[in-house]
């Protein structure tokens, strides 16, 4: 798997929808096009809904990985301002 070093990391463990996406979206908004955001989360539904919503908003999903029994790591590249 390709390894990308993220430009920004956020930890949204403990948050549920829709605040998971709200936090992720605000983080992406604050970044430059081309930069990569890494998101650590433990709400399973968000591991599916955040990538889908990010793609709907024109961003690129680079990685969706279950890293432990409870946690997921997502990488999103900002393609659209």
């Amino acid at each position, binding site marked *: 798997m390709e390894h990308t070093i993220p430009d920004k990391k956020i930890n949204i463990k403990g948050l549920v929808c*829709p*605040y998971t*996406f*709200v*936090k992720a*979206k*605000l983080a992406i*908004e*604050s970044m430059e096009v081309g930069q990569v955001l890494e998101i650590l989360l433990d709400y399973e539904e968000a591991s599916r809904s955040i990538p889908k*919503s990010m793609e*709907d*908003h024109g961003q690129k999903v680079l990685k969706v990985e279950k890293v432990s029994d409870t946690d997921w790591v997502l990488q999103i590249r900002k393609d659209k301002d």
Partner: protein
Amino acid sequence: MDFTDDQLMRYSRHIILPEVGGKGQAKIANAKVFIIGAGGLGCPVGYYLTAAGVGTIALIDNDTVEMSNLQRQIAHSVQTIGMPKVESAKRTFEALNPDVNVVAIQKRISKDDIIDLISDYDIVVDGSDNFPTRYLVNDACFMARKPLVSGAILRFEGQVTTILPGDGPCYRCLFEEPPPPGLVPSCQEAGVLGVLPGVIGGLQATEVLKLILGKGEVLKGELLIYNALKTTFRKVRVPKNPSCPLCGAKPTITELIDYNEGYCAM
């Protein structure tokens, strides 16, 4: 803009929208809106703009709350009967959203103070119930170059239009002069369906938010007419009148006019 946890929760459904986001919500928080009238239209407009998080909302109205207002003026209640409408609405709005600075001005707006009053605000909303005020607000917004979201209601029919400074027609392009006193009945004489101002005020609040966000299309050069009995929306194109007495090539109206005499006697 850094949002508090409460604000993240309160505005989450806005922030999620691609057309709004955190940046759009920050624009809403920085916006200043001036609402003429705290009655049928002013209540829902102010209520929804408060919910949306508009930073500063001014309300001007000279009346006090009466029982007969409560069928449609949703910011007031039996607890606030006898209180100035602007004060009653301020309490309701502040209870909904403490982020919002509500400026309550209890007086009848006049040609002597309107330009001064609206000068600090980004957008003006007309929710007045009479023609003298409607024309005064139109003329003042043209002169002060303020966007104006105009609404009107009677019986089962309402209308909305958005007038942008120096871009498209003004209210006088549509109706050059106020009708003679007594020709068009007031809500007091003719009645109004209580939910009608909710629909029209909701449309006005939507226009305001789009102006703040700079997204979508507003009712510029168009009059939207809603008929509640038939459940129809009609959009009528309003061309700019090149010989409009206010915004035309050779304007004859160069200062504000008080049409109140004659009307007040009604």
